[in-house]
């Protein structure tokens, strides 16, 4: 039962009463869940079947669920879990250990490093606090050192990156309890985010941390951490880190300023988007590009770099990611087609408006059912060879 989005709604009413005992929407939904469970519990996962299912959205967790269908689906689609389920235990253990090692390597407290090297100084403890002048020892590294190999110097340089990460993390989805609450759990989640983003920045010294990366990490952390399977949610941070790396491997060039005008940079992607629009809705393309002269960077930049995380509410965003991650043609392509659907769905308002109202609409996209937009994207591109 490969369900495209419209299916569930359509067949509920019409022919069901004629064929079999009334299949309510609930029945269809339950059948869908069973289908997911069947595909996910195979010994070797059928990736094509999983993709087809996930395109229509992964069912949400319900109380009493043993594990999160979405968490497991995302981990498989992002390559964190291979399709051979026998390898899962060992590969998970290895990766989680690796993440722990990264954390230890990069989260350095210079005072503790100094204390460790001092503890080996034999004279130290005995002569401390005897009356008289304090005994002195040699200094290898001090807080004011400007040497490039100084632990302290690196610590202060890292602090700048950490500050920027903290500013972004504090602003992530403030309307969602998971990220912003009074009972302390959101503080823990924020620490997870800060650590992950910092480790990423240290592993990618050329790119470091760029504003907005937090938005590509937040849905992963939420999905994995809210997994009812405690054995999985316990390691949500490490799993989200590797999945984040996987997503960034495709989208990193959008964050690099120097690559803006290159063939993999954000400008090229925006040009591809406009190309799709021109092909499928010439009138709208002509209106936006020629008559209104709206540069795509005014709206598409944010849509693309942040994968539409600022355009929709969090629950809708999670649903969107099901489709983006499942699309066999790739995440970026899926994202671009979805953006075209966003434009085409608003074509009446856009064609009737002037520059100011067009820009206003595009920069704060009117609330729309995400499923309708996804269906539109599939409809638009069903016919094309793309």
């Amino acid at each position, binding site marked *: 039962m490969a369900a495209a989005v419209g299916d569930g709604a359509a067949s509920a009413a019409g022919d069901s009463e004629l064929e079999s005992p009334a299949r309510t929407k609930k029945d269809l939904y339950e059948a869908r869940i069973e289908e997911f469970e069947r595909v996910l519990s195979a010994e070797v996962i059928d990736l094509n079947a999983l993709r087809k299912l996930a395109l229509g959205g992964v069912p949400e967790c319900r109380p009493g669920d043993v594990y999160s269908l979405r968490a497991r689906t995302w981990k498989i689609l992002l390559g964190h879990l291979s399709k051979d389920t026998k390898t899962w235990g060992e590969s998970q253990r290895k990766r989680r250990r690796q993440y722990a090692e990264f954390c230890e390597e990069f989260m350095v*407290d*210079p*005072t503790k490093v*100094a*204390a460790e090297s*001092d503890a080996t100084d034999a004279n*130290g403890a005995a002569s*401390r*606090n*005897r*009356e*008289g*002048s*304090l*005994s*002195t*020892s*040699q*200094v290898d590294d*001090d*807080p*004011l*050192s*400007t040497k490039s190999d100084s632990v*302290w110097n690196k610590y*202060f340089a890292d*602090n700048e990156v950490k500050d920027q990460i903290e500013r972004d993390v504090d602003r992530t989805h403030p309307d969602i309890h998971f990220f912003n609450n009074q009972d302390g759990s959101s503080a823990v989640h924020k620490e997870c985010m800060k650590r992950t983003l910092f480790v990423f920045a240290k592993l990618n010294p050329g790119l470091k941390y760029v504003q907005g990366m937090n938005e590509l990490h937040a849905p992963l952390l939420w999905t994995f951490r809210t997994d009812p399977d405690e054995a999985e949610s316990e390691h949500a941070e490490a799993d989200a880190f590797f999945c984040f790396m996987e997503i960034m491997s495709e989208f990193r060039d959008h964050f690099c300023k120097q690559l803006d005008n290159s063939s993999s940079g954000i400008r090229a992607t925006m040009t591809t988007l406009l190309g799709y629009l021109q092909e499928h809705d010439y009138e709208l393309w002509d209106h936006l590009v020629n008559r209104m002269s709206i540069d795509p960077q005014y709206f598409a930049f944010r849509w693309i770099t942040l994968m539409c995380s600022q355009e929709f509410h969090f629950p809708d965003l999670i649903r969107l990611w099901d489709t983006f991650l499942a699309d066999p043609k790739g995440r970026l392509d899926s994202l671009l087609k979805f953006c075209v659907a966003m434009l085409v769905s608003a074509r009446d308002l856009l064609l009737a408006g002037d520059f100011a109202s067009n820009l206003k609409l595009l920069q704060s996209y009117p609330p729309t059912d995400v499923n309708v937009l996804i269906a539109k994207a599939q409809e638009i591109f069903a016919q094309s060879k793309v």
Partner: protein
Amino acid sequence: MVLVLCLGDLHVPYRTSDLPQQFKDILLPGKVQQILCTGDVCSSEMFSYLKSICTNVHIVKGQFDEDHSYPETKVVKIGDLKFGLVHGHTVIPWGDISSLGMIQRQLDVDILISGHTHEFRTYAYEDKLLVNPGSATGAYSSKEPSTTPSFCLFDVDASKATIYTYKLKDGEVKKEKMFFEKRG
């Protein structure tokens, strides 16, 4: 891990014109969280310079300070340690351990920072510590025509402190390190 810069007796512009360039090169903003200044910076420009290194400056009145609003003594709690700050010209005999000890008991502090002698010194007794960071500019004192420019930096970790001292000798910054731990 709190970094506390400890310096004083700058006497700018009356006895010296500025901090040595070697010191200015390493006293960069954004690294220390507090400054304890023993006083006698003299000019307000110098005080503004200290504020540019760190906005949290604790200062006491020296013999020749232009700003008369500084207090005579100050007590600052950092981590689990209590720091006392006094310039030292009112503590006689100047630099005397017992006299400074009286001030320490009066202020009830673990570490007493004082200056005026322009001579770097640490003295530990009875689980307490006396520290004199010396003159950061090497200005002449009442006794010595020229002194070694020096200051120190505390790395406070709860009840432990690592003290890094910086002295300018032969045009080079010589560093040393000491430890203090409050017991009980």
